[in-house]
């Protein structure tokens, strides 16, 4: 075992892994984090704590991660390249590890244009693949990106994201390959609704041997309503939602759309479990953390292993 990460242990033991997600609040109340996280304690192997997602200012990812950690969850501390240069990133990684965070996720970050500070400097000193390489260098070679030795190097289980649905399609697996080559220990994908396209992606990834070098967790997000299905289908960059899914959710009676969304999500998880190369799921129940346990129970993924 390279790290103290619970996610690493679960994957190494050969279990089908489950990760969840908590979005920090746009305020300083720790109870908001505790309330969201409380629904996931004991239900997931790690919980992603987002970093100013959708380019909106929120409680810092490391602080909210620490709150989750104190509740007995394994935080997957997210870090984006949009807001910090490599000095700030490395110092945050040292601090996060010092406070007991062992798992992190390296991301580019949404463009500031989408958030509440479109006037902010858009840093991108390094990109997400260079961030993976930087963290690996810190952990495994004990060196800062600038080359100097780290007196007590951190040990992070390092993840990255993959979007099987963005364009150009033929680059999606090649870019995943670059993330794996940079050292990504695990991968979490964008929410999957287009199962056919995802299976093609996985087929290529398996063929290239990528799933032997990294653990790939398939992303799922339950659709809460027909409105949400339509929004995901039309408004979210790099996301594809097949018409039949939008029709299924939007076509259900209003008061049972949520239940239909949960049913669909459970079916998707069961289908994903059978896809070669998939090592687990990443459940992003956006502002629906209290329904996560129900989905995981129905999908037969509870209880979680304790290692």
């Amino acid at each position, binding site marked *: 075992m390279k790290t103290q990460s619970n996610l690493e242990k679960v994957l190494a033991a050969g279990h089908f892994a489950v990760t969840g997600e908590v979005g920090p609040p746009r305020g300083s109340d720790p109870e908001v984090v505790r309330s969201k996280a409380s629904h996931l304690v004991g239900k997931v192997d790690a919980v992603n704590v987002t970093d100013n997602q959708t380019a909106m200012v929120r409680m810092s990812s490391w602080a909210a991660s620490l709150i989750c950690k104190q509740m007995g969850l394994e935080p997957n501390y997210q870090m984006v390249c949009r807001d910090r240069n490599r000095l700030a990133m490395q110092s945050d990684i040292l601090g996060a590890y010092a406070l007991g965070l062992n798992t992190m996720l390296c991301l580019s970050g949404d463009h500031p*244009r989408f958030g509440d500070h479109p006037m902010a400097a858009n840093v991108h000193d390094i990109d997400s693949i260079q961030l993976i390489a930087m963290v690996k260098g810190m952990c495994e070679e004990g060196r800062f990106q600038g080359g100097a030795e780290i007196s007590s190097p951190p040990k992070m289980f390092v993840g990255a994201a993959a979007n099987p649905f963005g364009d150009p399609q033929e680059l999606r697996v090649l870019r995943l390959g670059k993330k794996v080559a940079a050292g990504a220990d695990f991968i979490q994908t964008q929410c999957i609704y287009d199962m056919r396209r995802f299976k093609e992606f996985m087929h290529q990834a398996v063929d290239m041997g990528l799933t032997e070098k990294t653990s790939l967790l398939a992303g799922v997000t339950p659709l809460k309503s027909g409105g949400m299905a339509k929004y995901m289908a039309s408004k979210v960059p*790099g996301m594809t939602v097949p018409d039949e899914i939008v029709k299924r959710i939007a076509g259900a009676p209003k008061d049972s759309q949520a239940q239909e969304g949960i049913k669909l999500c459970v079916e998707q998880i069961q289908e994903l479990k059978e896809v070669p190369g998939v090592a687990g799921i990443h459940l992003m129940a956006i502002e629906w953390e209290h329904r996560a346990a129900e989905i995981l129970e129905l999908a037969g993924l509870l209880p979680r292993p304790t290692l």
Partner: protein
Amino acid sequence: MITAVRKPMAEILGYAAQFDNILLLGCNECVTVCYAGGRKEVGILASALSLAFLKEGKKLAITEHTLERQCDPEFVEELAQTIEQYDAIFSMACGCGVQTLAGRYKDKPVFPMVNTQFMGASERQGVWAERCAGCGDCVLAYTGGICPVARCSKRIFNGPCGGSTKGKCEIDPGVDCAWQLIWDRLKALGRTDLYSQIMPAKDWRTAKDGGPRRIVREDLLS
């Protein structure tokens, strides 16, 4: 070339209000090519300023002149004999020209008439787009001649990000995804092997992060 757009009239009138006699100075280089500050634009702005002053019942003496290059001390020197006549210089050059004037004529107020934009190229009549970020360490040989620094919204060196859709950037359907263009070019060149190389973290010292930059050519020093 360096591109620019003229400042809003209200801002220019705000600068002009305190003066009676100005030199409105164009530049015959980049800003002429992008129709922002050449001889023609000097004429148009002079007329607009005169008209605005007349409306207020005031008068502004405007001398129109266009230098070959405002960023070149040799041409800026031309003004040495006449500069005393004017209260201020209203420069239609890019920021480089404005600063060359300010450096040479230290007690003369100089005002910018344009907002300098970017280093770009003309896409078609009336459209210019950014092409170079002047990062000081060109990577175009590895990216099929398309610059990820200037043309990717997240200046990603190992792109594309997950937001590339049908060849367009997530920030605006009017913006091409640089990595789609890079990939298309690498395929056309038969050099998709270049994509699989991880481009390492960039050394930004050659860009503006290393402090203000200078080029000194010993062989040309006199």
